[in-house]
């Protein structure tokens, strides 16, 4: 076997490695803000992020997932600048771990729970007891994901959780629960009222009154490791433009005008 063959085989490999290194080594041309936010904020923050990009010239990267997952990643060292959680508890954990200052956080939004049913389900839901007639109920993981925890607490208060628990399909975040009901994989689900507006096939069958469910508050914070960019974005979340977006999508804005 000649050395020609050896050279031929090494050249593409070297080119691949060199090309990849060049691509990876280039610095990012624009400053970036990395936002970790609850999945239920996907639409709102994408819109708000785009507006911020236009105004500031910075790039906004959003990672949407269950707030529990995002908090865990931040604790493990994920380089997020801003965190918007669907639960005060997850934010408290990060504050206790010294990853953010109390003065850098505030309560941004409030939300409410609704029960949704897939298009195939024809029955009428007059009360939560009607969930007993459903085979599969999609929720965010009721022991981890904020939306799932709120739903479980509501059902526990209604005295129904122990009987419904075995029908629960736990999902990684609230939007996955919405997808499960939208696609018909689960007959019913419990999501935020703001998520239900994004449903294509599922419909709202029951609204959970605020008095029956735990308070659903979304705190927002800039993390200590962030430089000025994160703070700019956090301030933008409090702006009238952002308020308009949140309210249009069904959130209650807690920040004063």
């Amino acid at each position, binding site marked *: *076997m*000649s*050395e020609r*063959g*050896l050279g031929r*085989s090494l050249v593409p*490999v070297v080119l*691949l*490695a060199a*090309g*990849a*290194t060049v*691509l*990876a080594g280039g610095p990012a041309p624009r400053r970036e803000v*990395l936002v970790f936010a609850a*999945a239920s904020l*996907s639409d709102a923050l994408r819109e708000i992020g785009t507006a911020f990009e236009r105004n500031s010239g910075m790039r906004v*990267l*959003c*990672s949407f*997932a269950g707030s529990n997952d995002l908090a865990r*990643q931040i*604790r*493990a*060292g*994920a*380089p997020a600048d801003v965190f918007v959680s669907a639960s005060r508890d997850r934010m408290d954990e990060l504050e206790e771990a010294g990853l953010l200052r109390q003065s850098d956080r505030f309560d941004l939004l409030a939300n409410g729970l609704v029960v949704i049913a897939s298009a195939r389900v024809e029955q009428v839901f007059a009360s939560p007891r009607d969930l007993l007639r459903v085979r599969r109920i999609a929720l965010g993981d009721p022991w981890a994901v904020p939306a799932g925890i709120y739903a479980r607490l509501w059902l526990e208060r209604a005295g129904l959780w122990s009987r419904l628990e075995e029908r629960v399909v736990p*999902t*990684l*975040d609230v*939007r*996955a629960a*919405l*997808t499960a009901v*939208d*696609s018909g994989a689960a007959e019913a689900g419990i999501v935020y009222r703001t998520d239900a507006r994004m449903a*294509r096939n599922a419909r709202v069958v029951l609204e959970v009154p605020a008095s029956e469910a735990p308070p659903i508050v979304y705190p927002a914070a800039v993390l200590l490791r962030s430089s000025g960019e994160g703070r700019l974005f956090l301030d933008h979340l409090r702006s009238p433009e952002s308020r308009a977006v949140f309210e249009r999508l069904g959130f209650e804005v807690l920040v004063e005008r």
Partner: protein
Amino acid sequence: MSLDDLGVVLFTLEMAGLATAAILVPGVASALLLARYRGPGKGALETILSLPLVLPPTAVGLALLEVLGRDRPLGSWLASAGVEVVFTWKAVVLATAVMSFPLLVRSARTAFEEVDPRLVGIARTLGAGPAAAFWRVTLPLAWRGVLAGVVLAFSRALGEFGATIMVAGNIPGRTQTLSLAIFHDVQTGRDGRAVALAGVTVALAFCALWTTEWIVRRRSGEDAP
């Protein structure tokens, strides 16, 4: 395909390329060691190097997170030096490199084992040092198997999921590879996009594996001493 989708494809190719480049030298070295070394501990070494092949990828990812997390010794030391690994592109490269490593080693090792040791011996008697014997005798005879291993490792790196999502997360624009994007799209009900991306992965995997087969098939006939 939208610009975003193209970005995910390019990012995935870039990450897989970097991971493959990173394991090239250690992988070939390990393969050579396993092919030649006959002493004690060889069995244990073989097993340890093959672990990522058999372990659940999420377990591998978790192990990486336990070592490199912010509140772990190595992780906090790196953080104090200003180096961020977890939940950045570096973690994507690391996770895919670890998962692909055994594939490169196995393929290259088989190729090295097929090299007649007498040929190496002849080179040595003619005055070649160990390095010269490797570059001018062993590697030219084994290059097809090594290359097949490289392409296989690259293909594996393209599709890595479990270890990647554990230690790099699923951050669109920063750490989201093709397989993570497919997962995320299905979760959020964007089935059309998921199917399109899955189609791309099939095409990429097909090309990569077909190339491997072509390389290996051409072994017989050309190399007979």
